[in-house]
């Protein structure tokens, strides 16, 4: 197209390419520099690493810290906790690996200048809960970004990575990534010996509760566009547990965090009549999931389930009784900082609705579902485990390498290891970064081969949404309605509606079934076809078009995994109406998928869950 005749492809050759500058990516950058002093290490990010990723806003707590120095917890304890919360299905080797290393990350954060609250009596970090510590975390991300900037050979901000590149000579080996600059519109080709994908999980896969301006106030960042999965699965990486979407019980509309209120301040949730519904519904939960109902603490999904049952019974609104615990100025400050550090919008909800938490309780609600690998959920890539403790069939090479040679992952990218949060994602980035260095050193003299014809085809595909718009826009007078293209937002809203109505979103109280999923897949398939007809009127909209693409591919994986798992494993996250019970005989296993791009086919299988810790 003549409009883009000035496009000039930029080539970047590097040893290690890190895609995504959030906590996983910053950890990978730091660690790969520590071990690979002479290597070229490149970090690429679609926004600005100073404030990017899920922690852009800040955080009020670090949710994964053992405290081994004070004998508080051992890694095995953490594995038991995460396994219990995920109803038995986790990669214990990966979780153990993060847990044993995470303290060294957190100690570095403190050395770098992160203010961590202390218990005045013991001098230890102030515990919010057994695994969580309280921080003054407004600048958590800028501090970590400083460490990454000082480690990378180069940081490329505002580059939207759209595809991974595969080696043209060696099958199933990664060779880099391609994308474009959201600022000047130039295509970027990164050729790399190893790639660490540390991109984000997915918000806006399912229709959010707020759909006007408020659709931006999703619980998880609106810029978390599921690129972790959109990039990997199209490269043929094996993915697991994609059905394991997460639903969060949070303060209504603002989605402010509840952890500090429940755990540190000791606030209680109750239904509209003041009843403790969780205790009252225990027997009902036990009938549904058996022994898993007795897990301590109660799994996140089951707590959601109890709240949902209350709402269905008309016993809402559900209230968090903040007013009963804010009896000192110190506690009031903790309560407010909890929001101001990481969810300012919740403070605005209180100010606008005249809610003073010292006097008035606040509504809680369950969110729309999200797809991620770092919270109380573990979607993501199947990865090789730690050399010294992974079971043999979980180990095929370098720690955190996916089933694609040279392709590593961290944070939301890696499946099966829930409860990483910020510190664990950074730590997993460190693990992947060190592995990538070892891979590159072992592969010395064997640079990746990229086919020029493949590049030209990708380049054309990347800019097609702008061509679609340029051509289609000429046919109409004005406005947003055209016969030949839809905008990225129009595509996103169709995706959210399909996922909401057929795959277990809020409108069906998270219920789905085989017939619903099969119908949803028909509609999703047409949306995937329509991705060829997205119209982007600007580079910003071109970014949105590719975010949509990553979300649609991720959504298809979510749908297919949900269809494959014929049980209800996580009531409160979603329900298979046609298989309403947890079924350990058949489904104490990971669901795994691999997309074959050449044949355009998905293969779904089961993978074994090994319990290596009692």
């Amino acid at each position, binding site marked *: 197209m003549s409009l883009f005749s000035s496009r000039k492809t930029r080539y970047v050759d590097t040893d290690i390419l890190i895609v995504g500058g959030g906590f996983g990516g910053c950890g990978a950058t730091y660690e790969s520099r520590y071990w690979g002093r002479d290597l070229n290490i490149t970090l690429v990010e*679609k926004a600005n690493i100073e404030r990017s990723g899920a922690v852009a806003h800040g955080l009020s707590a670090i949710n994964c810290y053992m405290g081994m120095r004070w004998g508080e917890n051992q890694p095995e304890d953490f594995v038991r906790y995460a396994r219990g919360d995920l109803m038995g299905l986790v990669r214990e080797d990966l979780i153990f690996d993060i847990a044993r290393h995470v303290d060294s990350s957190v100690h570095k954060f403190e050395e770098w200048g992160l203010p961590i609250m202390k218990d005045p009596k013991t001098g230890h970090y102030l515990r919010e809960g057994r695994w969580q510590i309280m921080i003054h975390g407004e600048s958590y991300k800028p501090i970590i970004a400083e460490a990454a900037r000082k*480690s990378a050979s180069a940081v490329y901000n505002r580059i939207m990575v759209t595809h991974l590149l595969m080696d043209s000579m060696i099958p199933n080996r990664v060779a880099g990534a391609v994308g474009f600059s*959201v600022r000047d519109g130039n295509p970027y080709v990164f050729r790399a010996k190893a790639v660490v994908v540390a991109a984000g999980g997915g918000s806006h896969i399912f229709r959010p509760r707020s759909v006007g301006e408020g659709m931006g106030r999703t619980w998880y960042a609106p810029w978390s566009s599921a690129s972790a999965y959109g990039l990997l699965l199209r490269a043929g990486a094996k993915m697991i547990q994609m059905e394991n979407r997460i639903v969060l019980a949070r303060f209504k509309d603002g989605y402010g965090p509840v952890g500090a209120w429940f755990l540190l301040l000791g606030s209680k949730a109750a239904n509209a009549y003041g009843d403790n519904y969780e205790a009252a519904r225990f027997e009902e939960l036990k009938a549904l999931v058996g022994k898993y109902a007795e897990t301590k603490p109660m799994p996140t999904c089951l707590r959601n389930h109890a709240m949902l049952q209350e709402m269905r019974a008309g016993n809402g609104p559900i209230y968090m009784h903040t007013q009963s615990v804010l009896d000192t100025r110190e506690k009031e400050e903790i309560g407010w900082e909890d929001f101001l550090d990481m969810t300012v919008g919740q403070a605005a909800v209180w100010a*606008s609705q005249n809610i003073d938490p010292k006097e008035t309780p606040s509504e809680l609600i369950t969110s729309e579902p999200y797809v991620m690998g770092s919270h109380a959920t573990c979607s993501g890539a199947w990865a090789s485990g730690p050399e010294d403790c992974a079971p043999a069939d979980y180990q095929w090479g370098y720690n955190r390498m996916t089933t694609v040679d040279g392709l590593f992952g961290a944070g939301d990218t890696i499946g099966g290891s829930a409860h990483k949060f910020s510190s664990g994602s950074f730590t997993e980035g460190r693990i992947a970064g060190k592995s990538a260095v070892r891979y590159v050193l072992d592969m010395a003299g064997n640079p990746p081969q990229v086919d020029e014809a493949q590049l030209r085809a990708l380049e054309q595909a990347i800019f097609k949404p702008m061509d679609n718009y340029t051509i289609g826009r000429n046919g109409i007078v004005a406005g947003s309605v055209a016969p030949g293209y839809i905008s990225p937002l129009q595509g996103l809203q169709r995706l959210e509606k399909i996922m909401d109505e057929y795959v277990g979103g809020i409108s069906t109280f998270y219920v789905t079934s085989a017939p619903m999923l099969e119908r949803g897949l028909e509609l999703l398939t047409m949306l995937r076809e329509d991705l060829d007809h997205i119209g982007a009127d600007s580079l910003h909209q071109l970014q949105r078009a590719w975010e949509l693409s990553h979300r649609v591919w991720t959504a298809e994986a979510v749908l297919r995994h949900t269809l494959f798992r014929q049980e209800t494993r996580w009531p409160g996250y979603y329900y298979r109406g046609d298989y309403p019970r947890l079924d350990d005989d058949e489904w104490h296993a990971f669901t795994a998928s691999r997309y074959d791009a050449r044949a355009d086919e998905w293969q779904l299988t089961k993978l074994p869950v090994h319990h290596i810790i009692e």
Partner: protein
Amino acid sequence: MPTFTYMTRCDGCGQCVDICPSDIMHIDTVYRRSYNIEPNFCWECYSCVKACPQHAIDVRGYADFAPLGHSVRVLREEANGTISWKIRYRDGREKVFTFPIRTTPWGSIKPPADYAAPDSVALNSVLLSHEPTALMVATLPTLLAGR
């Protein structure tokens, strides 16, 4: 709680454009000042508000659920290592808070390459950088039972 920019304060410097994680703060081509091009993709993360040297950016709660008349203002002072908040309620009540943001000077982090280079034994071990020292326990835990 999407952002907006006050016409009389913005000088068009573009700091908000540089920092916005959602790429929604853009410069208006007619007025040469910034504005939020996509309020429904704004997470009200306040990155732009904090970065604005002119204090020209403010937020108004999402129209879907936030009644008018409130404000949440912020002053982030890197040199002091603090952030201060002033919250004004719809009914006029005010709350003020100040919290620390960093305990060390900005730019003071020691780059990983400034540490002594690790040897090949360390490279081939399961230890990460600064371990086991930074763990503050004698050894890295392992799990032989897995093999």
